[in-house]
């Protein structure tokens, strides 16, 4: 791994953000809208639901964590799509970069885009709704790690699809997260799901992450084994995502799609 090349790719995306105020605004806008929306919903449920009584902020914290996952994945996809839209794809893939350096650069730079979008929203939630994700304490770091790994994995799967099917796969990029959200048990316990879906859901890290989040906020107990489980599952998916990306890259070379990408 050559870190100066990874830095150069990161710099390319940093310049893109710095050169465009509307782009920064766009990054901040959606998470902030989410916080307002879920903040009011959360407030309503807190006042009217037995399950959520005296547990201000569970839904809003879930919304923030889910948005973190969403932003991480979308950031990864967006940076890849930017290369296609700007017709820079060929230049990038003929540069002396290893494929793992491209993956590393996208993975590391996605965190920057994610945080630019999310930090203002998280800060707004504190005075406006009296909710701070920091209440999760040290486990928050590990929950975010698990979410980030899984978000990047979804990004890897979507970009693999872009390599395989070309820019027409773009719409899937936007839909990918909504597909998994019902199984993620973000706002409700896993018991709500039918038995078959519960089995599938347990294979996703999201269930364990959000169960743990609720456990910390509702019962004030931390189960590090559960957190470790969620990180391990995310890591397995991440490795699978990387393998699929490589397969798609070699497949794209075979089909010749790398040379006309974006045209």
């Amino acid at each position, binding site marked *: 791994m*050559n870190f*100066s*090349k990874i*830095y*150069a*790719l990161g*710099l*390319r995306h940093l*310049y*893109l953000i710095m*050169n*465009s105020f509307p782009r920064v605004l766009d990054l901040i806008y959606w998470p902030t809208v989410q916080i307002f929306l879920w903040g009011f919903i959360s407030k309503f449920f807190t006042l009217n639901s037995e399950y959520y009584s005296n547990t201000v902020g569970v839904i809003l914290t879930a919304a923030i964590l889910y948005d973190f996952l969403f932003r991480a994945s979308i950031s990864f996809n967006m940076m890849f799509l*930017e*290369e296609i839209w*700007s*017709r*820079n*794809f*060929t*230049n990038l*893939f*003929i*540069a*002396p*970069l*290893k*494929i793992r*350096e491209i993956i590393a650069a996208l993975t590391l730079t996605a965190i920057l885009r994610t945080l630019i979008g999310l930090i203002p929203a998280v800060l707004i939630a504190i005075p406006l709704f009296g909710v701070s994700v920091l209440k999760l304490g040290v486990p928050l770091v590990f929950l975010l790690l698990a979410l980030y790994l899984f978000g990047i994995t979804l990004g890897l799967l979507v970009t693999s699809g872009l390599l395989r099917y070309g820019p027409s796969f773009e719409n899937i990029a936007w839909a990918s997260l909504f597909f998994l959200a019902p199984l993620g048990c973000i706002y409700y316990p896993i018991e709500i799901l039918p038995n078959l879906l519960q089995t599938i859901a347990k294979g996703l890290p999201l269930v364990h992450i959000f169960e743990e989040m609720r456990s910390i906020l509702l019962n004030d107990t931390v189960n590090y084994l559960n957190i470790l489980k969620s990180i391990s599952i995310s890591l397995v998916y991440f490795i699978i995502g990387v393998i699929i990306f490589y397969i798609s890259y*070699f497949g794209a*070379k*075979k*089909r*010749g799609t*790398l*040379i006309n990408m974006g*045209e």
Partner: protein
Amino acid sequence: MFIEIKNLSKIYGKFLAVNKINFQIEKHKTIGLLGPNGCGKTTTIGMMLGLVSPTEGEILIENKNMNSFKRDEILKRFNFASPYVELPKKLTVKQNLEIYGRLYGIENLENRINEISSDLDIKSFFRRKTGELSSGQKNRVSLAKSLINKPEILLLDEPTASLDPDIGDFIRSYIQEYKMKNKITILLASHNMNEVERLCNSIIMMRSGKIIDSGTCNELIQKHGRNNLEETFLKLARSKDEF
């Protein structure tokens, strides 16, 4: 031999894009790759750049199969420019050159950017976003990017397509001057016959994925009894079954 293409083929599904082509490129020579649209030029360039995997055959660089090199090691010896491939539009010219300079691991990058920018006369729009430039300006920036690493092997795909005669001549003169001053091997795909006559030591004619003839410009013109390269190209492109 510096570059040797041996029995190279590419099949997309049932379509035979490149059909067992063989050619060699000597070090520091400029070879023109000519042929009608869809004849396999871009696929051949794609295979040389590692963007397309050959179905059959091999590409040898200094007698060593290209696949035996590490991807980043071989690619830092190459570069490529084409008006159909652009640089990020929202980045300034300087930012783009900086990014690519870093990706190619250029030492004294600031000096190299200054040097190449002065040579190609792009300093006046250094701070402008690349997407705001005219076609001529974009082509010069794209050429600057393709030379940032002082490549040993430069692949050019129609470098002067859609440019006005003045800018086209500027680019051709620059490439001519650059190859005289620097030790560089160039493969030039072009539909501009004057450009090919001016820049290339020899040419390869392709049609339907095959090489149908090769030689110096004069050799081909004389061999086919035509007055210039354009007429020779038309004869070769239109005569379906002769070859």
